[in-house]
């Protein structure tokens, strides 16, 4: 049982890893720019908040990356947070969520 499950699990993990692919270095540079300049329009250039809430690691503490990713992609209805899925892929949004949680937001 375990013998044949293992490769399945490994391949599933492989799919998951491939799914959350890291954006190319060029795309990362674009995303960092977007994070500072465009997210910064509402959340502040230093991400300490503006019309939108602060996005610093202390402000985001305890929030799972999937939650941030979904918020980025689909926005928050009833607030000014727009859905970014027209401009960002799932990989892009996950990469951004990880950067926010790690506080690695400067260019």
């Amino acid at each position, binding site marked *: 049982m375990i013998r044949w499950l293992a490769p399945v699990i490994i391949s599933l993990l492989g799919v998951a890893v491939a799914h959350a692919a890291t954006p190319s270095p060029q795309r990362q540079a674009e995303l960092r720019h*977007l994070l500072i*300049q*465009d997210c910064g*329009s*509402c959340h*502040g250039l230093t991400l300490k*908040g*503006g019309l939108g809430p602060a996005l610093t690691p202390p402000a985001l503490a305890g929030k799972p990356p999937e939650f941030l990713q979904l918020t980025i992609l689909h926005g928050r209805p009833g607030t000014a947070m727009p859905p970014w899925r027209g401009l960002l892929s799932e990989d892009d949004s996950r990469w951004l969520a990880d950067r926010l949680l790690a506080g690695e937001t400067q260019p």
Partner: protein
Amino acid sequence: MNAANESTTAADGDQVPMRAEWGTVLISSMLVMFLLLAVVSKTEAATLGSGDLALVVERANGSVQIVETTGNSALTRVEGLGDLSHASAVFSRDQRYAFVFGRDGGLSKVDMLEGQLVARVMQSGNSIGGAISQDGRLVAVSNYEPGGVKVFRTDDLTLVADIPALYGAGQHSKVIGLVDAPGRRFVFSLWDAGEIWIADFSAGDQPVISKFEDIGRNPYDALITPDGRYYIAGLFGEDGLALLDLWHPEQGVRRILPHYGKGEEKLPVYKMPHLEGWAVAGNLAFVPAVGRHEVLVIDMLTWQEAGRIAVKGQPVFVMGRPDGRQVWVNFAVPDNDSVQVIDAESLKIVNTLQPGKGVLHMEFEPRGEEVWVSVRDQDELHVYDTASFERRATLPAQKPSGIFMTARASRIGL
């Protein structure tokens, strides 16, 4: 002059020894003239007029540039203004000082002629904009955190009044759309509360506050007509705008252009539009739609919708040329590389310019023959001729955003 007079007097006397004396006197008088000229030209270089100056916010570095718009050149850079990721400015009535409102809650007073930061206070944790009173003695700042308005003396930036924007069960609301109005009043809107407040300083430095509730969901910015009569707040949380007649505040706030979206699903708004200045041509006013790639046209006699103009993206600034004939529009991402020009008579787009990525702001020169455009990602300021649309000048600037000309000093609401 004295030297020349003496030489003339001397010349009337003896002829022969005069020659040498003449020469000496001539040379010395020329020297005096030279020195005088040097003094005069030095004085001229040091004495600037203030009417053709502008302040340009450099958002990444906490600096501002001071530029002049007659020769379209940079004069100096002033540093140390803190976090200017969102910043705006108003001017003292003599146009000498700019009051710059920074994102980090800093209020900075900049001497436009000396190119120096002369005063600075950290007045909140997070601010969004400000206004200067009719008499030029008070400067008000609208704050996000803690939500409210603080009012300072313009001469030394000492605190005059603190107006927390409290609503409901004691929550603070973020404050937006702060403008000055005639009668030493400030008018502003509460984003979270959906209210418009008037702070009346006509009786002194203790304001009388009037509150208007239920003006609509999430007012995002506001403007006042150039005559100071109508205050209009744009609504983010619903279609329409809130209108307050400051000649008749007792009539309350009424909604205009309600439901202009007619139930259509809104497009994502990647950057909040601004209502600044007032794009007016004749009876028509032009404002950005929210969540629609349209500029709305309002008939100011009836306050009814007079048309809509399809544009390239989500409008951010909709700015009227001072003569009212053209309306210039810039956009949120991903269309922020473009500027479109609307003919205010035909309501048609007559030109689309592509200055480059990150067009953040536009400011017309006082009589409108040229317009300055900040192009953030290219680190450039562009100056365009508004008749030929040709670029007249390109100046380097570090991530430029807002451009504020001193001519605003004498305009209500700016």
